[in-house]
């Protein structure tokens, strides 16, 4: 279907609205393996390329719960089992005193899972990616808006897909080497 050394076709657009419109049209046309690149987050763009939800909130919830439980169990085990110490006649398992550390551990667990979960789901760090082979792609971090239809898409055809992208109002369409 496609030559192995082509990653896809990259179209450049002038502004965020054109990019979103183009992504909608491409998705409507039946393309599924594509990604859009922009220098700022665009509210509706991920939905336009057909990506809806992320599991990240669930990961953060689990991270927070695990952190909190670990913090509480650590304190209970240290204070009531491993090293019971009578402080002013308080019970060994004096749970109200364990709340601040439990709270901090919950926060720590949730924050670590938010950051590392986001990086892991995004597949970062990733030093090499074929899109960086496009010379104008350096503008994706300044003022450029790009849509890339990937060669592994079932509908991908070098000449027909290029013609399609040109109808979307792209200022430039480039073949991305793999």
């Amino acid at each position, binding site marked *: 279907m496609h030559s192995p050394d082509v990653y896809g076709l990259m179209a450049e657009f002038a502004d965020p*609205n054109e990019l979103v419109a183009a992504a909608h049209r491409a998705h409507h046309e039946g393309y599924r393996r594509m990604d859009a690149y922009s220098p700022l987050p665009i509210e509706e763009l991920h939905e336009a390329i057909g990506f809806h939800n992320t599991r990240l909130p669930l990961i953060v919830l689990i991270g927070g719960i695990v952190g909190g439980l670990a913090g509480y169990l650590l304190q209970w085990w240290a204070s009531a089992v491993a090293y019971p110490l009578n402080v002013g006649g308080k019970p060994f398992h004096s749970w109200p005193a364990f709340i601040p*550390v439990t709270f901090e551990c919950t*926060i720590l667990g949730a*924050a670590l899972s*938010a950051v590392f979960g*986001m990086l892991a789901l995004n597949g970062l760090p990733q030093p090499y990616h074929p899109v960086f082979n496009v010379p104008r792609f350096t503008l994706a971090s*300044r003022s450029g808006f790009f849509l890339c239809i990937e060669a592994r898409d079932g509908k991908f055809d070098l000449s027909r897909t290029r013609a399609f992208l040109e109808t979307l109002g792209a200022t430039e369409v480039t073949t991305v080497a793999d």
Partner: protein
Amino acid sequence: MDNPMPLEERQLTGAGSGVPVIAPGHTFGSVTDKISAIVLTRRTPIGWYLGFMTAAALTGLLLVSLSYLVVEGIGIWGNNIPVAWAFDITNFVWWIGIGHAGTLISAILLLLRQTWRTSINRFAEAMTLCAVACAGIFPLFHTGRPWLAYWLLPYPNTMGIWPQFRSPLVWDVFAVSTYATVSLLFWFVGLVPDLATLRDRSQSRTGRIIYGALALGWRGSAMHWHRYETAYLLLAGIATPLVVSVHTVVSFDFAVAIVPGWHTTIFPPYFVAGAIYSGFAMVLTLSIPIRAIYGLQDFITLRHLENMAKVMLVTGLIVAYGYTVEAFIAWYGGNAYEGFMIWNRITGPYAPAYWALLLCNVIIPQILWFKSVRTNVIVLFVLSLVVNVGMWLERFIIIVTSLHRDFLPSSWGMYQPTFWDWSTYLGTIGLFLMLLFLFVRFLPLISIFEMRTLLPEAKGEQ
């Protein structure tokens, strides 16, 4: 966002306040170029070298002071029974408090959709990290044997002992280390897209390699942005209760003890308000010269300075309420020791410091009621210094005046700072400024990608 447009428009045109949060006429390209040029292409101003060298010299003083302390022991400080906590803990609380404005600006104002925060949040977060680093030095070296500081952490050891989890000092270890970690993560996550911008725009190979490695291969993919924004919002939601908890736990260090002047329930809210008060004062102290030196008046507008002044006015009033309640309860509670404590603050040997504190924190800041003051850059700068001094005096008063008159007159004492108390304190100010100078030189001090989202272009209005 259900309907962000009217709000954005109002903020961009500045309706209601007269001054916009970003000057008109900017585009995605111009915002990117202007901010990244500070790091990549513009000549480093001579003022940067002078400032950096001064700060580095003070950091040298810090290294000398800490080395001498390690050799000689904490006897080189003026602390002694009954005043076992003095400059060290005063400075610790002062620095931690300063850090709070950074998290407040980056997390709480994000949740409240205050888009004006965008041009100051990166800088304020960096300030938080530097302040927490300075704060950490004090309790660490106050242990006297900083190389054994890991004993504070719970880990299985051959001594068979564990930390005392009923002690607020152990809570503090967890609160401050969690705060430092989460602040670092929040700051770094915010930096990643801007590091990609620097990677793509750097002219030098070294720059491309270093910024490229730090940018983790960020390429602005729509799927990545979606997860990124989710993570950022969740982090803001997590950091909000965290920032409130940190100074609450710091106040527990005092409030849980039975010392008159410390043992009071007003401490947690009053400490949190004081932290935000001093933090905003420090943001003003730093941002006013920076916007002048780097010509960033387009991005850090009078609107920002005025909003920060308003936050200071409100938190200053909460702090004033705290002082009032402290004095009222000391009288109304009828406890002889508590009553003596407040009377001793007002008329005792440290009375000048107490009156200076009221002058700096309560009386002078009332000029912020006037709009002409809130929009006068020079007056705001001077006032921010006054509040910084006032908040330092507050912690000094709370710690030293409460300790120096013990329950029995036979245990009374006085505290006088030594040269090494002063040099360590000045040294941390040097370290703080040196780290900030490095940050301003090598990283974008305004969040570039968030500034892009504020432009009319981002909403499709060319």
